[in-house]
């Protein structure tokens, strides 16, 4: 794998093919995020770790165990994500004072399962690099979106019908437009 290929995977996964907003697999998790910028960064970091570990395990399972039982893929992948999140929660509970809800959000996140399914067809090295890049992309999106959402406190300036979800969707849409703009310049 050449340096150009790694750079290509990194840039595409972070910007032009961002799993959270452009592919809209994690759109719910991003839009529903009401945390501060710092906590959003931590949530993104946690999601990256979950993505990395889950991808490594699901890739191995898909390549060696699920070959003849492909119909069990979704069920097995969800189970792996659940186990990874639960083990991370047990470890994090001992180290930090963390909230169980954040860990639930790692599990109920289409981006994690979507990445596992997409990466199953790649080579192991590509899958791991993609998992890291997608995780960074998700972290960036969650953090930038949280920061942008803070600026939406001046709700009086927004027409009444657009307050709440519509303005959140428009904000996310403008972020998508900015990310897609990079697709053409690469």
């Amino acid at each position, binding site marked *: 794998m050449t340096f150009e290929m790694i750079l290509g995977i990194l840039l595409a996964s972070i910007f032009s093919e961002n799993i959270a*907003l*452009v*592919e*809209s*697999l*994690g*759109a*719910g*998790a991003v*839009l*529903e995020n009401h945390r501060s910028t710092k906590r959003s960064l931590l949530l993104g970091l946690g999601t990256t770790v979950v993505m990395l570990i889950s991808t490594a395990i699901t890739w191995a399972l898909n390549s060696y165990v699920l070959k003849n039982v492909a*119909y*069990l*893929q*979704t*069920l097995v992948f*969800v*189970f792996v*994500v*659940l186990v990874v999140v*639960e083990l991370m929660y047990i470890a994090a509970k001992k180290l930090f004072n963390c909230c169980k809800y954040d860990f*639930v959000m790692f*599990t*109920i*996140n*289409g981006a*994690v*399962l*979507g990445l596992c*399914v*997409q990466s199953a067809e790649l080579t192991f090295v590509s899958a791991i690099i993609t998992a890291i890049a997608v995780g960074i992309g998700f972290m960036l999106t969650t953090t930038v979106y949280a920061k942008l959402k803070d600026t939406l406190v001046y709700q009086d300036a927004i*027409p*009444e*019908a*657009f*307050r*709440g*979800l*519509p*303005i*959140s*969707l*428009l904000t*996310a*849409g403008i972020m*998508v*437009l900015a990310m*897609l703009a990079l697709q053409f310049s690469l």
Partner: protein
Amino acid sequence: MKTNKLSELLKGTPSLLLMLGAGFVMASSSNLQAALGMGAAVLISMLLASLVLTALCKFIPAYAQLPAYLLIITGFVSIIGMLMQAWLPDVANMLGIHLATIAVSAVIYRKGEESAEGNIFPINTALVTGVYLTVIMLVSALIREFIGSASIWGQPIEFMANYKISAIAGAFGGYLVLAIVTAIINKLTSARNTEEKEDK
């Protein structure tokens, strides 16, 4: 009386559920066939999950609720995915990975959780939510397909061919159209609430 019951069932649905289900709503609203397929998948999985979780909730200990609920929902989504691959392969291919990810969608999980918590009308709420999401998907898909691809149900619309805006069929269009649709719903809901207050 009927209106009151419907409002009760839809309580919290418009904004929160659309926010949680934004991912699959946008992914499947680029054309009408995909929207109908996804709507059916969401509705059936939500109904079946509500039924089973209502029946099993007493036997699932509190610490195992999240994994148990998610695995039950994933089981139904996998079955629906396989049936779709067998009978509607084109729609299944159109939905792709998004069909599998409805298994971990917060909207289905939360509705399942509500059913297990002893909601009096779990089937009704699941049905209303599923139909509501399907209607939103269909309306968004109609707008996006008409303006973005100059077609309806895959049939080209001649007079729109030179005026189509391809961006509407893409990811950005999904957010834009859904934002406008939810703004219209907000406007209608607030107008109805004002009328009800005035009546009282």
